[in-house]
């Protein structure tokens, strides 16, 4: 069980959180202006890297806030957490 550092509450057990998939996939400004392929990319296509991955978490059994984390999918190490709307930090 991961120990996830909620940017609002501090470190808490993974069981308190819900996973929200890849971060920084914004709802398109004007969906009607997108081609079918562009819209399908937004709906269905997500990255699946081995290594660093920016992803969304929600502290559902805590403060109920969404935030982002950069996690290494191979080791489960969380390198950074940051608030929704903030840019992805650069991990050396």
């Amino acid at each position, binding site marked *: *069980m991961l120990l996830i550092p909620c940017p609002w509450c501090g470190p808490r057990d993974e069981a308190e959180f819900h996973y929200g998939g890849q971060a920084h996939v914004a709802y398109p400004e004007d969906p009607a202006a997108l081609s079918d392929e562009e819209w399908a990319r937004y709906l269905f296509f997500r990255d699946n890297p081995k290594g660093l991955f920016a992803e969304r978490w929600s502290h559902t059994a805590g403060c109920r*806030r969404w935030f982002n984390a950069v996690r290494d999918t191979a080791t489960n190490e969380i390198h950074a957490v940051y608030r929704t709307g903030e840019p992805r930090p650069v991990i050396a």
Partner: protein
Amino acid sequence: MTAQPYRREGVTGKTVRFRFDGRDYEGLEGDTLASALLANGVRAVASSVKLGRPRGVYAAGCEEPNALVQIEEPFPEPMLQATTVELYDGLVATGLPGQGRLADRPDPARYDAVHAHCDVLVVGAGPAGIAAAGVAARAGGRVILADERPEPGGSLLGTTETLDGRPGREWAAEEVAALAALPEVRVLRRTTVVGHYDDNYVVAVERRTNHLGAAAPAEMARERVWRIRATRVVLATGGHERFVAFAGNDLPGVMLAGAARTYANHYRVLPGRRAVVFTTDDSAYAAALDLADAGVEIAAIADVRRAPGEAWAARCAERGIEVLTGYVVTAAKGEGEVSSVEIGPRGAGATREVAADLLLVSGGWTPVVHLFSQAGGTLRYDEGLGAFTPGETRQAVEAAGFARGVGGTGVRTLRACLEDGAEAGRRALAAAGFAVASGHRLPAAEEEPTAAPAEHLWLVEAGDYGTHFVDLQRDVTVADVLRATGAGLTSVEHVKRYTTAGTAHDQGKTSGLLTSGVVAHALGVDVAELGTTTFRAPYTPVSFAALAGRDRGPLHDPVRVTAMHEWHVARGALFENAGQWKRPWYYPRPGEDMEAAVLRECRAAREDVAAMDASTLGKIDVVGPDAAVFLDRLYTNMMSTLKVGSIRYGVMCRPDGMVFDDGTVIRLADDRFLVTTTTGNAAAVLDWMEEWLQTEWPDLRVHCTSVTEQWATVALVGPRSRAVLARLAPGLAVGNDSFPFMTWRDTEVAGIEARVCRISFSGELAYEINVSSWFGLALWEAVMASGEVTPYGTETMHVLRAEKGFPIVGQDTDGTVTPQDLGMEWIVSKKKADFIGKRSYARADTSRPDRKHLVGLLPEDPGVLLPEGAHLVETSALPEPPVPTLGFVTSSYRSAALGRTFALALVSGGRERVGERLYAPVGADLVPVTVTSHVLYDPEGARRDG
């Protein structure tokens, strides 16, 4: 001769009576079942799973592969190792043929769970673990010391070593008692750490009353699962001895040398009278000498090495023990147990047979690296040990003592382990942020002879490998491994799966490395490069009851009941689970079955007046200046145009356009809405709203609050509902013009402040009366007081809505259904620039003509009820599989109003098939059905206004 013929001379203690395989025996307090059986001369304890060969006690701890038993009394428990079952009065057990039987009665014991945090968790209370815990605890750290045995000491329990001039076992007991007295220290005995997960989340199982038998206090949890988050972990888990593959190495009487030493020293039992020792390192000499001192005749020591440790050889010479260097055991022989041992020079040469009832084997020692490996640590091969030791890890964990390979030659050296443990404890506490003073005093250990290098021998070569066992519990032999490598398998993981070696419930503690060794031998490669199989939790078997803890029976999942629940129970309602809610399903009258009750309830709702407890519907308060804008984006239809005082039905979809939830929206004020959701989706809808508000539209000034439990709701349904409401709410103008459909009024109902909504989920004239949940029961009782209102449950509600073609999200939809598929084109706004899902209705996929539409089905035989889930085909005879299916039945009921059965179904191109005959394969039959509109009752909507 005592009653226990193999008990050492002069041993006294409290007698414990037990029964094994139908015979009564006596043991001593402090025995395990294994040591008590050995004391009574019981050699064959179990039989093997595949070959049915007799098997005896092989080890003295949780690594035991052979002596599997079932406890019969006081409570049945299968697949226990006799070496870990503590003896108690009244124990009844049987030996197992590799498989046990589950209890045929419910377990009366309690199980519990504890969550704990600490600075340093030390696993294992042997010399290294006690030293580590001592340093960390005396410097003020919060320390948990967990050990699987009933008493601390670890390897000290099996030896005659001294510390500060007294038996190591006494030192361990005193030191651990002193640590336990410190306020920040917790010592967990009989506690096995079974899993080491991410971020030092460690799971342990504490056995609290198993050793007490029938005397166990009923109020005490039998086992507790500890879930520990530790800043640092020190793994002082010691080692397991391994054996060597030779002919007949599974015969009762063959035993690990270290185990025999433990039986003689700790349990005061002689595992035999005359022993041959077969070894690859110095450690078995200590065992041989201890056994000799205890009264076992050591017939010979066969040492595969040319040069054993000189000091050991000298000690053997003093006692007249013959040491044969360069020798191996070529076979253990005997009928059902060892009666002689064949030994000979390694490679070739004349063998000779030595009479013996005991054969002690040491193939070297393997550090217990299970937890380190589970934690994500890498392993590296240690040439000196001939085993894998901990390598790198990113977790805050380190191994100490022999678990780290300290000693390095296959012989654990006590002083080195103490020092290593103390260092690990110091490092761990410093890393946890404590200032650690130096100068922790370690007890003085005896000088130990310098060890000679071990030789790593996996198997004794022979012509026939049929009884050279590698995994005793799985009955895997060298012959099996050779078959696997002969079939081209070159990875231990593949060999493991092909032969099942290492997959028994001992998880290959004695056999894992041996399997790697034999595979390496067969392939002519180095064990170091071949590697070992992956270690996975749990380290030892864990009962499901322990994992379940208190979360069983009524506590398995939270149960939610409405304010009116006790009335439903008193009226004999049967209940249906809707998520965690208990909802009345139907209210049978005496003599009624479900069908009769539901038909009666349906008639009352359509022809008279009936009421349902609708309190479980999800309710969310959506408040703020941008609430209307927000709901316009969430729902497919327009909510901002809704007038205060009015109600609108709405559907929410996902961005892919598929229906997610539906319900009503009530406008309470310009900036305030009350949204209802389906019962099962209430939490998901709130999550959905918060997700969009937080992650996409943080600029919207909206707050969402669940108010589901603040309200109790009664649905009052039927042509006479208006009359009943008028009587209960004299202050409310109930006429159709003053209180039209899809509006709400605040009033008093039965003297209770109430909000009444004119909405209908049945097509009939209907009202939903909402009051504070504190008054829910009072409202319900007032509605029921005159006796004219029929209570109805969820089954009737389902029938009524299905007759009207109202879908239930999650029953008639499955996440692949659009509003258009449901025949609800009208609810998808054309005016709004965007809403969640809109863009997807322009995708080619959502306008495919063969999409599944919600339709009605009428079985041609009006008495036939289709099973929900039944598929639909076009032809009256089934073609060869795969049979193309057009869709499936989502809802199916008997209708009082229609006087027949009917169903709803999702059918490919269904709306174009109205009038067609399709077939539903049900068992061996193909049931003919006619496709109709999904609205089967009152399609004009004439009944809505009463």
